[in-house]
């Protein structure tokens, strides 16, 4: 999986060949391009930043500039196999609404996000008394786009509240997949959801 970060590789691993994908917050389209070239995926994307959209379209991808909070409404129900939200949930204005949109548009939703419950984050707050700056959350509090950070247990609780079913889950500590104690040990979580 050359060219993809370990986190995006973990997302890509959830998606079978020849499926259809909507990548919400697709950046410059690197995941969609990889899925197209390696898994013959029929991909679409939505991205807020015009420069990133232009880069994605220049790659030949069907990406529209738009805001996930407002512009997902136009996508028809159950119109793709997978709706992907990777590294974007924590930057959403209304994460719960976006999650509901994902499972409305996709038969399955793949949501991947940094875990604010990771021990390094907890240590930062506990001992330094400062907002955490860690390898998976490298930006300081006043510069970060992340306005709705959550822990893995927070996410599970929200999924339950919204009546979403967790089909699969996967965790990373750095670049290493892990299984046990994810809310403490994983700095990154991935959930496959359905409604």
């Amino acid at each position: 999986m050359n060219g993809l970060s370990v986190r995006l590789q973990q997302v890509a691993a959830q998606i079978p060949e020849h499926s259809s994908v909507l990548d919400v917050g697709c950046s410059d389209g690197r995941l969609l391009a990889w899925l197209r070239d390696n898994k013959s995926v029929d991909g679409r994307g939505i991205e807020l930043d015009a420069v990133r959209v232009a880069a994605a379209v220049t790659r030949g991808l069907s990406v529209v500039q738009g805001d996930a909070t407002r512009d997902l409404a136009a996508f028809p129900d159950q119109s793709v196999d997978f709706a992907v939200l990777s590294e974007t949930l924590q930057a959403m204005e209304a994460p719960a609404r976006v999650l509901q949109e994902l499972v409305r548009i996709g038969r399955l939703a793949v949501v991947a996000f940094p875990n604010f419950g990771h021990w390094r984050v907890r240590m930062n707050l506990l001992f330094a008394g400062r907002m955490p700056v860690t390898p998976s959350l490298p930006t300081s509090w006043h510069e970060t786009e992340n306005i709705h950070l959550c822990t893995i247990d927070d996410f599970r609780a929200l999924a339950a509240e919204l009546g979403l079913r967790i089909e699969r889950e996967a965790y990373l500590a750095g670049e290493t997949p892990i299984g046990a104690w994810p809310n403490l040990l994983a700095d990154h979580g991935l959930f496959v959801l359905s409604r």
Partner: protein
Amino acid sequence: MPSSVTHQQLRLDADLPLDSGLVLPRPVIAYETLGALDEAKSNAILICHALTGDQYVASTHPMTGKPGWWKRMVGPGKPIDPERHFIICSNVVGGCMGSEGPASPHPEDGRPWGLRFPVITIADMVRAQAALLDGLGIGALLAVVGGSMGGMQALQWAASFPDRICSVVAIASAARHSAQNIAFHEVGRQAIMADPRWQGGAYAAGCGPVNGLAVARMAAHITYLSEEGLTAKFGRQLQGRTDKSFGFDADFQVESYLRHQGMSFVDRFDANSYLYITRAMDYFDLADPFAGLLAPVFANCKARFCIVSFDSDWLYPTVESKRIVQALVAAGRHASFVELSSPFGHDAFLLDPPGLTGVIDGFLKAVEQRG
């Protein structure tokens, strides 16, 4: 207008039915081509021109001697490349650069059609283009591409001939004319019709309402620019003088510029054509047959779409492009959309704003590779 110029033309071998219910008897369509059609006839790209454009998209204009109007997009090594593509651009029906229009001779008496010419629509223009392609032996188009009114035609292709196109590129365009768009056009038309030389449209060749047409062009030209662009280019600078004249000469550079734009325009454009083509744009509303809903327009079109708007374009603002994109998304189509940044207003599509050629190049190559 000099009549000595000859254009490449084709007289359609059938009458052209019009949206108005009238019929244009075997109209002549003027066109230019670049490149060569490949054996599979799969590399044809139709370029649709804007209101005052013409078929000289990348070849030297026979009247003005100027280079083609879209050399930044069309040419060797450009996104639309005669080495890869067979490029067709035709003058719209109703135009004045060799296609049948109000200045053409009426088939019965040989005098100019004038206002006897039937009112045409964007869909009529597209029907004429399709008939031209029939005449040239071209079935399907790899892409239909246009900016402004050209983008309207490109979108109309998706509605009128969904099975004949693989992709649509609509830049700085809209799926309908807004009240503001119509209002500006009406100002231009009234300027033409208020010129005594207009004579109810029955002026003789070379004796047209040039003053009215120049004013129409001046007013329209402002709408193609942005306040930021005008300020950057002219500010309040005076033209060829150090102080105000306390009169009504073109004291300011921006006045002088607009007067020049107006006067050079009348050398190459027919006033009645201006009336007809602006009317066609005003009548344009793709959603009209579907009670105002745009998504059903694209229900039967499998083409890929590339929609581009510019942040300083207030004539066809981003919100109109987004409306098209939402309809395409709702119809399940493959769509790309980006709002590019440019200080040049609506005219940005004719210039080279950062990102535009890359976006169009990437889009067209993806269509070529994946169909």
